[in-house]
């Protein structure tokens, strides 16, 4: 079932609630997806964003400065207000005189890495537990379901800030250096709060699939449970998982942005669109420095929109036909 992680990021529930008719035909899927103009637009934008993210260091080299260099000339002398776009700094400067253009490009790396890794982590955990619970049933299922309930009932922001605070004091962070303020902590927090949704979806799908004939056939042939899980069930789950995951990525991008906005995200030396937007809103700076709000904002929305478009397209292409 869907559970908003923060109210602003409701999770897409049962993206595929109806049955999947057997195995999908790759050709059918591809032609459907390619014909979907919206989805293709989204995909193209995504590719561009990924390219920009990958080539950000090249841009930095070309411009001869990175995302953290300070340029006093981009900040006004008297009040410390940022200066706007000019020939050298296409997106203007931020409140400490850093290049907003380079930071926006590097921000793409942060958002994409965090969202992809966190989603990957959450998906792995979610699939594993969802499969185990749905297929094994009984005690395993109860434990997994209860675990899901607990995590879904946890106050997200409270724990995020608390955990971040706890892990910030010592050099090593938490869990023997595994959770350090920065990427690992943010990814860990996002993964922690989003895996239950996948687990629920997977469990639901497995529950409905496991009564199907082909599963029964496998069982009567004497297949081991693990073989059934991985050879028979998993391929049939690919469709809903892929769709759900693709739709979860933009939510996690927004989640990271919200965490950074509240000051619990990545450190300043790692540009993040969310943090840049937070900087733009602090002290209503954006009423003067519109460029600090506009550029990271556009990129953030573009990234989220395009993932959503691709996810929608995947669902339409993989799902049952509609008239």
């Amino acid at each position: 079932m869907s559970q908003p992680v923060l109210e602003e990021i409701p999770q897409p529930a049962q993206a595929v609630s109806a049955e999947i008719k057997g195995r999908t035909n790759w050709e059918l899927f591809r032609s459907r997806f390619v014909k979907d103009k919206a989805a293709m637009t989204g995909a193209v934008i995504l590719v561009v964003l990924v390219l920009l993210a990958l080539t950000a260091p090249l841009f930095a080299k070309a411009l001869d400065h990175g995302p953290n260099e300070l340029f006093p000339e981009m900040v006004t002398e008297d009040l410390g207000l940022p200066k706007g776009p000019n020939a050298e700094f296409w997106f203007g400067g931020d409140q400490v005189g850093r290049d907003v253009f380079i930071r926006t490009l590097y921000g793409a790396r942060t958002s994409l890495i965090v969202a992809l890794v966190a989603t990957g982590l959450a998906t792995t955990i979610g699939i594993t537990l969802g499969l185990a619970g749905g297929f094994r049933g009984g005690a395993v299922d109860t434990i997994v379901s209860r675990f899901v309930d607990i995590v879904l009932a946890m106050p997200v922001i409270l724990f995020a800030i608390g955990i971040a605070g706890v892990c910030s004091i010592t050099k090593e962070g938490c869990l023997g250096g595994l959770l350090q303020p920065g990427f690992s902590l943010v990814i860990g927090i996002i993964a922690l709060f989003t895996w239950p949704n996948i687990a629920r979806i997977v469990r639901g799908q497995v529950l409905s699939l496991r009564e199907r004939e082909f599963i029964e056939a496998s069982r009567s042939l004497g297949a081991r449970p693990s073989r059934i899980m991985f050879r028979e069930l998993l391929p049939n789950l690919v469709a809903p998982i892929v769709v759900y995951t693709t739709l979860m990525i933009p939510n996690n991008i927004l989640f990271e942005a919200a965490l950074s906005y509240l000051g619990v995200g990545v450190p300043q030396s790692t540009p993040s669109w969310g943090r840049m937007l937070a900087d733009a809103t602090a002290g209503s700076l954006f009423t003067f420095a519109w460029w600090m709000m506009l550029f990271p904002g556009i990129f953030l929305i573009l990234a989220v929109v395009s993932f959503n478009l691709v996810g929608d397209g995947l669902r339409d292409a993989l799902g049952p036909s509609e008239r």
Partner: protein
Amino acid sequence: MGRRRTLRMVGLALAVAMVAAACGGGDNNKGATATTTGGTAQKGGVYRTAMSSFGFTQGFDPTAEYLGLAFDLYGALTRNLVSYKHVAGGAGNTLYPDLAQSLDGVASSDGLTYTFKLKPNVKFGPPVNRAITSKDVEYAFERLNIATLGAGYGTYYYESIKGMDGKAKEAKPISGIETPDDQTIVFHLKQKTSDFLYRLSMAATAPIPSEVAKCFNSKIGGYGRYVISSGPYMLQGSDKLDISSCGAMKPISGYDPTKKMVMVRNPNYDQSTDDLRGNYVDGIDIQVDSNVDDIFNKVLQGTLDGSLYEPPPATIVRQYVTDPSKKQYLHSNSGDRTWFIFMNLSTPPFDDIHVRKAANFVMNKAGILRAWGGTTFGQIATHVMPPSVINDTLGQDFDPYKSANFAGDEAKAKDEMKQSKYDSNKDGVCDASACKGLIMVNRNTPPWTNAEPVVVDSLGKIGIQVKPRELADHYTAVQTVKNQIPIGLDAGWGKDYADPGTFGAPLFGGPNIVPTNNSNYGLIGLTPEKAKDLGIKVPAGMTFPSVDADIANCNKISVEEQAEQRTSCFVDLDKKIMTDVVPWVPFLWAQNVTTTAPSVTKYEFDQFSGYISLTQIAVNNKETVSS
């Protein structure tokens, strides 16, 4: 005898006058926006203001409360034996008799006895309504002495007044305080305390009616919602407080800790007994508004008459400085406070003085000032004590780590670093592993977050790579000695009262190092035994520099009688700390900035508390508050 006492008092008055003259008005900082105190004063109107949250440390109970803003509020609600005129600059740090009839001859010749005669017919506000007696003043000290009331600065009294130790279980008469009659109070001191009068100006010593407060002596902060006025204003709704029994008392309606504090005139107040306060406004209305930008927008629109606590963001300041008609409504006054970066001498590489000096050379203080919002918000600091606290006897002219335009001098920094043991190849850049990955604690709000990249960048030039941690509760992190945080950007220190001594022992005294709530961040004066007690590791063979002897010497010089020598002694201490000990990189002597609307026809700044002076401002709006 009498003549000597008078002369001594004249000496005090002279010293104080010199302090006043030297400190001048609020614009004693070069480049800071000139403050505009003064204007026309008419009675009436309500000062409507707002702040994001009260943030009281102990629930607004005067016995325990320590928030700077609270002192501003108490300045309107209560009166002390001695107090200030609540104006800006040195004149605002001068002591005058408030409840006491006079300060002439209050101290005995040996300085161990202080005798005050109270003005008759100064009354508590409703619902107590009776004259304030010496017993009420003593009661304040009885409360200070109760262990469970957690007096925030009780040490000032435990160490000076006989019979006080802060360990009392309940309110009991203090053996060292005599009240021979309703109008007389006598303090017997344990030893000569030259700043005793300053200690009597603190809000905790204001008279408290026992018939109300006795119900709140078991928990810290309990009395905070029942504060009875002894001053020109009272909490709205005080008259409706039912004091017939402890159980009958309900919190005074005018103060709701999460929503508002409204003050109205105390009907029992007699202006003829008070020449320290103007009391022009009829009421003060403080609302809680968590959106700070909102507060300043409302001031611009005129729905609020002025800000109170938070500094304005740069976008707001810009609107004032670029508009000639608005410029006069932006007020910048000395905050008597230094913001600094501390370095912990117990953690490499900061155990090496060359590294600390290099950090001072390389720091781009101009960049930090810009991040702070520019010269409106302060002046770049070049040593420990803000000029306004030491009578401007030492300003930016003393800068042992000078650089062009305060942008930092990388060459000189590298020269210094070459002499350090952490630079093995002598190229001016630290290459030891001790310089990498150092945790630097910072606050998680602007302007500290904006200053952070500047500091990181500067330190990086000499090879010191820090990992900034932006924490909401940075105090716990840096003030808990066991954490051994190597460096922090979050630190600041302001005066308690106008004596440079308040910038001495707590910050640099060896005996003042405590396991928690420690303000001697550098651990100056740490001894091996103390290090063991505290459970911290120190670099092998390290001897910590100590200035304890210097501090003790300066503290011996009397505040009241030899103010000039005392100041000059502490100035020398400041210089020594900056050249021989170097535990800090001070970067800003802060100004407090307030914006007002045109409705505020007379603006004044309370130098003692560091905020707008509620008892000296005048507004011409026609607002009213119901009593």
